[in-house]
Every structure is written in C-alpha cells, then in structure tokens.
C-alpha cells in the first residue's frame, strides 16, 4: 500500500499516530519481556514466565482492530496482547511479583493475568483451555444480541488438542462471533511444526469445520491488523468465526527452563534478522533518534512499574481463603 505520508495512513489502515503508538507498545513489550527475564534470572519472580519475544507484531496488530467492549481470551504467552489491549503495566508487574496490587491480587501470576472488567477473560495455563470457553462467550454474545466479538488466541500446539476441534466445530455450526487467531511460532514447546503436523498450514484445518481459514505473515503488523479487522466484520455481521494463522517465530525458549536443544542457533539468528520491531519502525520511517527515545521511555515506564510492584504489599495471609466462592 501507499507509504504516502500525506494520506497519514499506514498500510491503508492505520493512521500514523496510532501506528507509532503501536510501535511503542511493541518496544514496551520487548523491554517488558527482557526485564521479566532478568528479574526471573535474579530469583525475583516466583514460578515461571513465557516470553513472547519475537512475536510482538501479532499483539500490535490484533486488538487495535477491535473495539473496547470486545473480549480477549489470552494465552500463557500473552503479556504483549494485554499491554496492547490496554493493560496497566504497573498492575501487570505487580501480579508478576505476586503482590496484592496485581490484576489478580497476586493469586494468578503471569499465566493467569486477567481483567474481567475490561473484558480480558484471562490467560490460560492449559493449552487450548480457552477454546471451549470461546464457545460459551460466543453463545453469550449471541443470546444478548450484542455486537461484541471474542478474540481467542492460541498457539500451533493447541490445534492438536481435542478441545480445538470441538470448539471450532461448535462455533462454526452456530455462527458464533469468535476470531480464532493462531500464533504459529513453529514450536509447541520443543515439538517442531513439521513433526507435529502432516499439513503445511494450520489454516487448512478450517475446511474440516466449514469456517474460513487464512495464513498470514505474523511479523507484519499491518497484515495482522487487516486480517483481524476482516474477521471482526464477519463476526459482527453474524457470519460466524474465522481461523487466522499468523506465522511468526519465538526467539526464546518456551519458558525459562528451556535449553532449546531442538533448534540451532543459526535458525534463531536467521529469524532475528526478520525482527518485527525494526521492520515496523522502518515502515513508519522512524529514525534512530526517535527509536532510541521510545526505548528509553519504555525502560522508564518499566522501571516505574517495577518500583510500584516491589513496593506493593504482599497479600495478607488472613485473606488466604478469599475469592474462591462468590
């Protein structure tokens, strides 16, 4: 599409200021993940985390194409998505450190960050766990005759769980307003795509259930934006779900204890050359100076968030049993 600045539309869909905002968010995500890794290595984080380094473009392109009242059903690798959705970095960081001021009052941790008020129905600890839930959300939207859609995120690994098949089938037969966005980062933990699938593209599974399926370059923010936007239009019209396969790459291991013996450094380095962040920056004609400014702003925001989180109180032991029942 035209890079004509006078149009002020990037890729024909995003206006420049919004696009820059998204780039900042990508940078913020990257820095957040890196900072999180550092904190983990220093023993400051209890448990584990799943870095989305290298997959920032999908986060940047997906939720901006939706409305404020749409639903997000996130994955365990979902910090970026929530940040773009509008998540408060401070509260995310606090949840990360298990503090009372975190999104889940410290009870959920990285894997279960949710904000029901902003329609973020949570990250998943169970692969494909959010897929059957998407069916319920879709039914609910339909029954309430609302125009909302449910953006449901999952990885290539989830598409081999039974729940994936049950859910896509049900969503399709009932024309539920769900967007199934698969982040195919080529590895399900250590299982390489070629070993887990006979098919070449996950989107080809869509025909088994009768919904449209497309494969896009997951490292292209604009491509992601357009695909999600189209799927949303379909869904709101009542035409049912769409399966979008966004191909990307995961720079880090699955989680913190992943040696990554299943791939070579060369492979990782090659993909790093196609890093979506400098790519998007180039598309927006961002110069080095402006980029560095984004980086330092991101670092500052993170520093503040860490400060907030570290100075926040731990949950009170007397409240240990709270929040189980309504």
């Amino acid at each position: 599409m035209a890079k004509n600045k006078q149009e002020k539309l990037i890729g024909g869909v995003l206006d420049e200021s919004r696009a820059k905002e998204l780039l900042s968010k990508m940078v913020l995500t990257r820095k957040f993940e890196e900072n999180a890794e550092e904190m983990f290595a220093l023993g400051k984080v209890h448990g584990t985390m799943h870095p989305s380094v290298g997959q920032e473009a999908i986060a940047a392109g997906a939720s901006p194409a939706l409305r404020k009242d749409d639903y997000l059903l996130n994955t365990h690798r979902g910090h970026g998505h929530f940040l773009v959705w509008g998540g408060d970095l401070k509260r995310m960081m606090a949840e990360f450190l298990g503090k009372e001021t975190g999104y889940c009052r410290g009870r959920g941790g990285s894997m279960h960050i949710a904000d029901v008020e902003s329609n973020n129905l949570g990250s998943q600890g169970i692969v494909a766990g959010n897929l059957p839930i998407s069916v319920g959300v879709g039914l609910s939207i339909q029954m309430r005759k609302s125009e909302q859609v449910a953006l449901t995120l999952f990885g290539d690994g989830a598409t081999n769980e039974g729940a994936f098949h049950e859910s896509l089938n049900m969503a399709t037969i009932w024309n539920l307003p769900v967007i199934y966005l698969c982040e195919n980062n080529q590895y399900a933990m250590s299982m390489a795509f070629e070993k887990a699938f006979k098919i070449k593209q996950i989107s080809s599974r869509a025909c088994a259930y009768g919904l449209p399926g497309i494969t896009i370059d997951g490292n292209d923010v604009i491509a992601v934006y357009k695909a999600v936007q189209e799927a949303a239009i379909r869904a709101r019209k009542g035409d049912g779900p769409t399966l979008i396969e966004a191909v990307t790459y995961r720079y880090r291991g699955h989680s913190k204890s992943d040696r990554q013996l299943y791939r070579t450094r060369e492979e990782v380095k090659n993909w790093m050359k196609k890093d979506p962040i400098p790519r998007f920056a180039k598309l927006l004609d961002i110069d080095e100076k402006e980029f560095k400014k984004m980086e330092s702003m991101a670092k500052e925001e993170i520093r503040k968030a860490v400060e907030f989180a570290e100075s926040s109180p731990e949950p009170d032991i007397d409240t240990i049993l709270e929040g189980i029942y309504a």
Partner: protein
Amino acid sequence: MSKEIILPKFGFTQEESEILEWLKNEGDKVEKGDPIVVVSTDKISMEVEAPETGILSGIKHGIGEIVPVTEIIAYILQPGEVLPELGKKKLETEKDKISLTNSSNKSQNMAEKISEGEYIKRSKPEGKIGATPAARRIARELKVDLFNVQGSGPGGRIQAVDVSLEKAIPEKQDPLDDLPAVLKEIPLIGIRRKIADNMARSVREAPHMTLQIDVQMDAIENARKTGNENVKKRNSRISLTAAIVKAVALAIKTTPIINSQLASEKILVLKDINIGVAAALEEGLIVPVIHKADLLDVSRISITLNDLASRARENQLKPEDLSNGTFTISNLGMLGIDRFTAIINPPQSAILAVGAIKYQLVPDESEDLIFTKKKILTFTLSADHRVMDGAQAANFLVELKNLLQQPEKIFK
C-alpha cells in the same frame, strides 16, 4: 561501565549450578549474546550468554565449582576499565517472603491448638483399657476408674452402658448432691495423695492375711532397763522400738520370704533387710528406713532411729532415708491402741503392727490356778498371700516372739 555476569536461575527451585565448561577465557573479546560458560541446572546443562560486548574478565569460578544462583561469576569490561572492588559478591535480591504464621482463624488448615478441657486423670492402670469415647466421657464425669469397669463390648471394650451400670447412678445426677455440710476441704495432694493411692493400690492388689501373736515383753523390758542404766548419753539408750527392729531383722533371717517383693511374674526374696519404722507427721505418715538392720547392733539401731526421728520432725529427711525399705513396722501402741491391722506398704510383702504393752494376768504353765502379772504386747502381721502362706507368716511371728521373750540374741 563494567557489566556483571550473573549466574541465572533457570528453574523454579534451583538454588545452585555447577560450572561445567568455560567456552571463553579470561581476556577474550566477546559479543553480546555469545555463550561464554556452560552450567548445570536441575534438568540439563544451560549456556550463560554475555550480556554485553566487551572483554571477559574477572572469572571467579573454575570447572566443577558449585555456585549459588544470582551470584556474580565474571565481568564484561570495556577497554581500559578495571575490575570493580571484590567486596560485594552477590547482588541484593528479594527473598520470597512466605510467612505462614498461625494468625488466621479463617484458614482451615492452620487450626490453633485448643487447650484441653480439664478432666480427672486417675492413677495409671496397668496396660491399656479399650473403651469408647462415650464410655471415657461418662467415666470422667462420674469419676469412675475405668480399671474397675467390666466391658461388655467387642473384645471386652468398655461401652457407655457399662460405666453407667458400674456407678449405678442415674446420669446427669451430681454425686456430691447428698453430702452433709462441709466443715473443711482438704485437697488430696502431696503426701496425702500418695498415701491414698498407695494404700488403695495395696489393698486392691495384695490379698492381706493377718496373724496375731501375744508376746510377754517382761524379759526384754528388764534387759533394756538394765542396759540403759549404765548409759550416760540419752540418745544412746536403747528404745523398745530399736529392740523390736533388731528382733524383726533376726526373725526375718529365719523366714526370708517375709522380706520379698512381687515383680511381674516372679517373687524376689531380697538380701538386704531394710526396716522402715512408720512415723506420724502432721502432713501424714512417713517411713524412715534402717538399712541392713540385721547387720547393726541394737544400740546403733537406736541411735539411728533417734536421728531419723529428730530429722523427720525438722523436715530434714533425705530421699535415701525413705528409700529401699523391705519391711515396715508400725506402732500405735504408744497412742494407746491394744492391737490393730496395718496395710502392707507396696512393694513390700508384709507389715508388723505393734500394739500397746498392757498388764495381763497370765496363767501358769502348770495346771495350778496360779496367775502372774505379765506385760503383754499384741503383734499383728499382715502378709501378702500371693507371696506367702499362713505357715510361713506364723513361723516368722513365732520366731519373733521367741527372740523377744529370750532377748539375749537381741542384745548381742
């Protein structure tokens, strides 16, 4: 600015790593992201990457060393920089603060200890008794000793109904309701408690048989009187009690079964003859012991008795004064009692009760109607029938009589 290389924590519970291999050496130029060292983790080995481009310096640990996670293991220096002070080894890290104190009463698993309600602990019966919780509760409330209750449940288990019958008091009635007005309440503690328990146990466990013999005390009284005339020191004078102690000790030697103890499945006939002489104190009865009385002469026994008596009055008896008694003598004659039956002092097997000396008219040995005035003392022996029979007890008493009536052997 020099950059620290931290040994990272790779797994949830990892505390330390072993250095397996240095991929770069001290002084090597490294690029950001280059792997520089291989370390072990809980699962497999991992590579640590250079956080910056620069010169690898200040390597702190060699191959095979175990290093705690988050410790600094080396530095990346820029050209011209020097290593920082070797003072601080470790970066400050937050420790997980998990303080699970027992402060929550909403927490199900962190129940606070509730102090037990008071209930009466009876003296421990031998072995254990099977009883249901209900039976135990009723026993506590009615102050019934379960030891005495016959159980009608499976395997002789005591059930609630057994305890109620035993006491034959309708439930919920306070047994103290029928008492007359109370003048004084004395707590059953200390010596009183001990005596109560011991005496109850003795009567409960040992079948007591009692034998009596009347002894003419004239000979021994005369011998004593004669002997004491020549003694200047008051406390060297031989008391009647001392003479009796010596006589008893000698009599025991002829019938050793008197001086024994019953232990689970056997009777132990004891070697030492340690005779206790019961003394009444305000708090209760105590029994100071004359150890190895058979080996002491009667004057020594007398001295010892006096000493024990005076120390007893002054509350200065030591534990060894009261321990290891094998036979007890109890004298109520001095209080005017003609004769009485004493209760055996467990774990002993016999006790001698000494009555008062009284004048009686004793018929002559011959057939003629001649009566002589004699000093008569009735001795009553209580003996444990589990340990000995009447004949043996009789033997002892007869020997005692003979010794007292012909006291030469006592004063030897």
